[in-house]
């Protein structure tokens, strides 16, 4: 037990670090640190004197990443690649992952912006995609759901799919960050129209059926127009 004078510093650092942890979300860290301090588990040992420093370091890094996320897409702010590269997140796997992800997007920021700002793109989905790419995991999950829910019709979906195919082709590293979700969007066929829509009042609508109906209607109109023109020409020729 750390009760001798030589262990006072170790005990102080341990307590200063552990008392700052949030037991609701950091219980695993808390009990790992306790086990190491009490030597309940000799494996996976880590000097407890580092705990307080680590906590402060982690807090600082998380704050910087959060600031980068907020300003990531602002044009008046320089490219955040350099700032991200200067962050040493090697001790914190979750932050390391976040920084690497932001770095990937930052490396293609200009190309990405040009791609999604094309006038033929779906503006809302492009905005959601921008948010998802730089948000934290929890916010990104919510944003993905919102983006899917905001797709109303076949025309919109067609625009979105076009944009995603271009993204996959020209910026595969960015597409790769969201492959699961974006592949799911590309596979989408059925969507529900918004409530109150004059077309379906919220009933299910198959995009393919919608497309075929449009094609058939157009074809019929062409045939009728052609027949009318032919009739007029025939009448005139007589």
């Amino acid at each position: 037990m750390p009760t001798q004078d030589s262990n006072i510093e170790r005990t102080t650092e341990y307590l200063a670090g552990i008392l700052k942890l949030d037991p609701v979300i950091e219980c695993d860290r808390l009990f790992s640190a306790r086990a190491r301090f009490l030597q309940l588990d000799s494996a996976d040992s880590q000097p407890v004197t580092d705990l307080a420093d680590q906590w402060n370091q982690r807090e600082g890094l998380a704050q910087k990443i959060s600031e980068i996320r907020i300003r990531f897409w602002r044009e008046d702010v320089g490219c955040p690649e350099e700032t991200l590269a200067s962050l040493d997140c090697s001790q914190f796997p979750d932050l390391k992952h976040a920084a690497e992800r932001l770095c990937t997007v930052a490396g293609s920021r200009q190309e990405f912006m040009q791609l999604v700002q094309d006038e033929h793109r779906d503006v809302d989905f492009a905005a959601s995609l921008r948010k998802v790419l730089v948000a934290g995991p929890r916010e990104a999950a919510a944003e993905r759901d919102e983006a899917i829910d905001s797709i109303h019709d076949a025309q919109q979906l067609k625009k979105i799919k076009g944009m995603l195919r271009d993204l996959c082709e020209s910026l595969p590293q960015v597409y790769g960050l969201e492959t699961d979700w974006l592949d799911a969007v590309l596979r989408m066929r059925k969507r529900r129209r918004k409530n109150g829509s004059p077309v379906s009042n919220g009933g299910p609508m198959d995009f393919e059926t919608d497309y075929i109906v449009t094609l058939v209607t157009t074809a019929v109109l062409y045939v009728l127009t052609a027949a009318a023109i032919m009739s007029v020409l025939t009448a005139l020729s007589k």
Partner: protein
Amino acid sequence: MTDSATPPPDWSLLPHDAEAFFGLAPGFSRRDLKQKYSRLIKVYKPEKAPVEFQKIRAAFDQLAEPLRYGESIAIRDVTPASIFGQTSEVSSERPESLDLELRSTVSSPQKTAARIRRDSPATVYQELATRAGKTPFDYYALAVLSDTLPEFNPQWFFNWLLAGLRQFPEDPALLRMLHWYLRANVSPRSIRRILLVTASTVRNDRFYSLTEPLWDELLRTSPFEEFRQTLKHCESRLQDRRLEGRVAFLMHILKPALWKADGDWIEETFRIVDEHLGQVSRATEAEMELLNALREYIAVRSTFLNGHPLRSQIDQSIHDYCCLPPPQNAPRTSNASSVWHPTAVSYWKLFRS
């Protein structure tokens, strides 16, 4: 863009953030979780990637347990400002005068951590221990500080958590601490005493979800009669008319208990589950079907084992699935003849039919 091209999941998110690992949105359901889980284990099959499978399984269990008991895992969304008492429900037994005193002496993680650098842990401990109107954070600090006292007693940590929960029965941080303590630091010899003491403090339906792993361990390591008596004593201390936790617990414990319990206990427990199943919104037909199939299987198990040697492997696989803690209940071998538990149960169903 096929499944094979899907990038691997972010393993670094485990074990801290299983929700993000599975890509789950806040407020996800058991069905959402199962969908994500199934998708991953199709790629990381237990016989091909046992290490990855075990990590996925552990993350699944971490999220599935609160869902099974109907608890909101939104506890993880508590903001730092609301931790430790600022939103906690104070026990009605708390004298009103203490609240006034609390306002003037309230401590915070930052203040206490700073004090530790000025004063000795024993001094801070003594001051907090004698303070009237302790906050939930005080109890947490006392638990942590008690580990560093010269007259160290490993039980004090647990005792301070319980003392805090007696005053603040709904405090999320103290509940989370107890949840982890009961999964990390209980020696097999102490299980019975810990269960009885916990039942005297957490006297509501949440008791079952908090203590579930201890019951699993007790059942594995002790005679069934000891398990039965302990459960009876603990339940006599609970004061909650809700049954959701109890039914979810019985459905869980029946799986291993079926292999050890006597017929009367099994019959009575099935009766309770059947009677109250409608009150448990999260109980699924599949789980009940599995329990019924297991019950039938165990009744004819000896006959089933008199046959091809493969049947012994199937039997072992079903037994491991029911009785061993995850991830040990995953398949033991990676050869082609190994059978995994759902397959084994399905095989049994085919045999039965």
